[in-house]
């Protein structure tokens, strides 16, 4: 492998994503790196996240096709391998890289995520841009990350503390995102209806079989997915109705407010 791999300057993944953006790609970051990014992104709004930070590894998993793989490899001037189908995960290919300090990392391309259709994931993808860094990337929405994590946990025989850590982190990330949604709906930046539809979908998930199973097995309180304080205070009628008809009616631990 050593003779194939080019050297990356320090900054590793950041430089790689900058190169990808420069090549016209909007890398679609998934897996533990997506969970970690959301955790750090929302940590200022959810202080508990700092106690739960999920770990990341040297394998960056990007969602994409073979042309994305070839484009990134070209931009990095790196050779790549294609992976034959048949493994437990749909990995299309891998770009092995060696940084200038001798450390190795890998970029893997996968075709799909478990339990989510490609259309679903592409349409609901979050676009994040840093003008300072010259990076634009996409991430699965926090709710997609949560669903995938929940399904993957269910599929595994034993759960590690790290899995639970990641799930708890994603619960808080979703709450932070919905809190931004409530604020945006109150200032009429986004349509209230769209926020309610999103909350209804997330609520329906909490009542699904995998979610109920996770709640029972790991003592996950799905009410934590919702920004209860903001929902209690909101003046938006539809949002308020959702809070009363769904959360108050379903979760005994949900605080009561007069109708």
């Amino acid at each position, binding site marked *: 492998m050593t003779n194939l791999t080019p050297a990356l300057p320090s900054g590793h993944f950041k430089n790689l994503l900058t190169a990808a953006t420069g090549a016209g790609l909007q890398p679609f970051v998934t897996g533990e790196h997506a969970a970690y990014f959301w955790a750090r992104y929302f940590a200022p709004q959810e202080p508990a996240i700092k106690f739960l930070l999920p770990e990341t590894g040297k394998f960056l998993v990007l969602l994409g096709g073979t042309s994305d793989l070839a484009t990134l490899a*070209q931009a990095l001037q790196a050779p790549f391998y294609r992976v034959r189908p048949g493994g437990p995960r749909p*990995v299309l290919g891998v770009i092995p890289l060696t940084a200038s300090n001798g450390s190795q990392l890998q970029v893997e391309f996968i075709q799909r995520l478990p339990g989510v259709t490609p259309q679903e994931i592409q349409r*609901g993808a979050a676009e994040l841009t840093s003008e300072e860094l010259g990076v634009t990337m996409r991430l699965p929405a926090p709710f997609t990350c949560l669903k995938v994590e929940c399904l993957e946990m269910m599929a595994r025989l034993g759960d590690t503390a790290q899995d639970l850590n990641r799930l708890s982190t994603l619960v808080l990330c979703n709450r932070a995102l919905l809190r931004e949604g409530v604020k945006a709906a109150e200032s009429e930046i986004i349509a209230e209806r769209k926020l309610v539809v999103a909350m209804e979908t*997330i609520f329906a998930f909490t009542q699904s079989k995998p979610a109920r199973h996770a709640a029972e097995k790991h003592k996950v309180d799905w009410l934590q997915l919702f920004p209860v304080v903001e929902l209690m205070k909101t003046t938006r009628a539809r949002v308020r109705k959702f809070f009363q008809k769904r959360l108050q009616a379903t979760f005994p631990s949900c605080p009561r407010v007069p109708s």
Partner: protein
Amino acid sequence: MRTNARQQAAQRTALRKATKISYARLQHLRQETLELDSKRVTSGRAEPQEILLESRLFTDEEIKTFKLANLEQVLAKTR
């Protein structure tokens, strides 16, 4: 992604010429990467903290520079 015909042809050639590996070989590559980092730590060439930092996409300060461009779409397309 916009690529011209020449780039597309180069991509097709690169894809055709790329070595194909099995999933087991991929797992082996992953294992090699992890082992190399363990060796770097045990030989004193790297601190565990350094390995953690290398494994992250961005620093906390860098993450603060990102803006979510499509909150409404993310919420509207929640499925």
